[in-house]
């Protein structure tokens, strides 16, 4: 899995490509920690190219949400594929991490 960080002005986009599992979860954590450390407060994780997420990946996303909120910001997710949607729904985590249809929408109403 690869992560790319893009500064979009009012928010930071993290593009996650591949499988979000026990191997890549720590890298997601480190990527978001770095973005928050560098001053990003509004983070959108773009999951359009994330073909798979398991409970380790979900745990990492929730950890990243905590880090963003503790810094006074927030983290949102966008463009989820079917398998990711399935895991969010089964665990009821779509209430804590509600997926947005596009990256732009995530912070559009703030």
């Amino acid at each position, binding site marked *: 899995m690869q992560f790319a960080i893009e500064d979009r002005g009012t928010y930071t986009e993290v593009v996650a490509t591949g499988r979000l599992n026990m191997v890549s979860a720590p890298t997601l954590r480190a990527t978001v920690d770095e973005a928050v450390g560098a001053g990003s407060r509004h983070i959108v994780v773009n999951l359009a190219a994330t073909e798979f997420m398991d409970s380790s990946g979900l745990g990492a996303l929730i950890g990243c949400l905590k880090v963003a909120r503790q810094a006074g910001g927030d983290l949102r997710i966008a463009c989820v594929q079917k398998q990711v949607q399935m895991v969010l729904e089964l*665990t009821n985590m779509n209430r804590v991490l509600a997926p947005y249809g596009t990256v732009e929408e995530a912070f559009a109403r703030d």
Partner: protein
Amino acid sequence: MTDRELQRRFEADAKPESVNDLHDELDRFWSALDDVPFEDQMAFTTAVIEAASNVVEHGVPLDRDGVRLGVELNATSSRLQARILEINAAAHPDPLTPATGDPADLESGRGLFLINALVTTVTVERQGNTNIWVLSKESVPRQ
């Protein structure tokens, strides 16, 4: 058996060190209540520390103020009760029904399993910005 009631309140940032401060508070609670059977003290303390540790480890803050950990302890002549407050935290996805404690089912997270095994009833509710666990254990003072 004499009628008696004791209450204590604890609040701190939800960080690991606060779990030690809470443990000190529990020790003082038992000193003030020297008639609670040792087995009950041990079980109840373990359950309260497990629940408080979960707040520290898993609570998702609503904003930069972070999560606060509150604990209200109450003992009457028939039961021990603790309300563990996860303050300024995201709502749990659903009103949580804690797993029922089957001792052979090691697979379902040892913390929640222990809580269920150690106290008589566990309930979970949401009030405002706070998730609340109420742990009750029947316990009759030593004569």
